[in-house]
């Protein structure tokens, strides 16, 4: 496996789709880290 992409995100759902899209063709795995991913009521 060549490339792991780790994306740091926190309540940033609006940005995330495009970010994922930009790496999806090259990443062998994508790891999302951050607190309560997608939780807007944090």
């Amino acid at each position, binding site marked *: 496996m*060549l*490339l*792991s992409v780790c994306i740091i995100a926190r309540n940033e759902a609006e940005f995330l789709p495009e970010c994922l899209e930009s790496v999806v063709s090259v*990443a062998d795995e994508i790891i*999302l880290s*951050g607190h309560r991913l997608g939780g807007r009521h944090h």
Partner: protein
Amino acid sequence: MSWRAGTAAGCSPYRGRRTSPLRGTSRSRRHRGEWILSLDADERLCNAELLHDTLLQASPDVGGFLLEHLSTDAEGNRHRTWLLRLLRNHPHIRFRGRIHEQVAESIQQAGYRICPSPVRLVHVGYSNVELLRRKHERNRQLLLQALQEEPDSGYLWLQYARTALALGQAAEADYALERAAGCTPEESPLWTQIRLWQAHVALQQQQPTAATKHLQAVLRHYPDHPTALQLYAEALLQQRNWQRCLQAYERWERALAQPTAEHLLLGITEPSAAEIACRKAYCLYMLGRWEEAESLLLDALQQAPDHLGCRALLGHVYLSTGRLEHAEPLLADLERRNAPPTLLRSLQQHRERRLRARQRTRPLLSFSMIVRDEAQRLPACLDSVRDVVDEIVIVDTGSQDDTPEIARRYGALLFHVAWQEDFAAARNEALRHCQGEWILYLDADEQLAPESARLLRNLLEDTPEEVGALICTIESPHRTADGRVELHRGAYPRVFRNYGYPTIRFVGRAHEQISPSILALGKQIVASPLRILHFGYDQAPQVLQQKVWRNYRLLMQQVQQEPLDAYAWFQLGQTLARLQFYTEAESALRFALQLGTLSHAMSASAAIVLAQLCGRSRRIGEMLSWAEYALHYVPDHVYALYLKARALRFLGRPCEALEALRNARASQRVPELPTTAAVQIVVPEEVLEQEERELAELAAQECSPA
């Protein structure tokens, strides 16, 4: 392709957030790839295929790749920097730090090297102001926590300062930068960044001199650092030093075109091409080079039609060149586009001034002169101004030749008065007859430079009410006692508003001045790009000598009448030196300085003549003191720096001499527009060059370890 979501277990939010995916976890469990790309959610990878190729071709000793990181701010400036975000998956390669985490050190410690790559990330986030503010606020809290653990981290203090600035807390930023500087070794990359931010803060607080100090320190190590050059240009802008500012902007533009790896690691800001054009055009505009400014702006607006700064400045150019009809639609358009109020207001005020000027009933400009037996040189002088002045007023003080005839041929109003051994009296007689709103005066052996003649009327129309006179640069070749020719560059107010005689009048029998009466009215005397060419010193030595004796006579009368007139004593000192009465010259100059009423520029000039006199009688220590005295008043005075270098050389201190000489050359390369009356002697470039070569040799012997 696999997907996993993780949380930074057991940590407060964001505690070492970039670290957590890499920290203490086995590769097999958390990251299975050979390489790890670390991204924030508001970043985008631009060129996935290049990333793939980069990794396939990666040499085994590379532990991390620098990615180009681009972001654009609200003003459209592009920030470009290199970040280490693509890392080899290795147990020892770890980000460290709570925030603004760093990884480079761990790569090197693990025995790998860092390599640039063509891979590019774009930062898109935070168009939302409130979100951005919350992010900065959060970063501030994290940085405060981190600083409690590491109070001596220059890096953390710098980041804290940047965050404080983003939150509009300038004083706190200032303090943080000082702390940062205090714990960072000089000349490290971090030190450079700290100095740049210090300059930035100084400029925000309108302290260009302080900013320049920081920037010169950076530019010594990185002569083409784009950010340093940009900030340097802005400092010069605040100092209204348009010529040097333009040059700095041009250097900046060149540096941006070819950033070095070092510069990219520090990060650079690339404004749009229109923004650069706008800044350069502003300098050109202030220098009165309106045609160049206009073509630069028109080109820029073709590329970026919406650049408000360029549009507003173009409006100013149209107004300054009397094209109100071109300016009107631009102004209306800026109003429609909700341009920033300052931009709008200055253009509106400018239009008001031009409209008022159209209703003027008085002539704009009178040309005034006093002459005697000037038939030879008068035509060239009058030719240089006849097309731009509304009337010519000439006072003849007793010509025997064709002077009156020539004056009439040019349509001059001619008046005759008897010569009373008093230049001011004769000039005031001419002043009385001038009708124009402004008065320009020249001597018969002077000419207005052609480019200044083209500029003059528009410049006057544009000059605000509070300005009473414009300083012109007078360039004249002088013949020295040993027959050499040196160029003197004088600065005198030769164009002034006509408030009516005797409210406005000349004072002084010789070297008469108009400034005192203008300053007494509370009006300003400001720099201008106007240039006058003086040919008087081409004359035969005996004619010149006669003039010097005449001045001596008049000045002696002047100081007898007004013994506390420091300016007359200063001129008398210079005249005595020219007549080779060196001891008397020295006394007169010392007395002029003791009176303490000379302007800074004139004090410097007096000290320079004293330094020359000491040098000629080989009192080198005194020569050095006087040169330094002059530099105290005018820090970048070319001739004072040159004399200082000469003195230090005689004293056997070649290293210091070399530094002074290099400063002299740097100052001479781009002369400042003078803002007060002054005289600079222009040392020929080849003389300075030769001197620098010799000093460099001497200094090399001196400074090299024995």
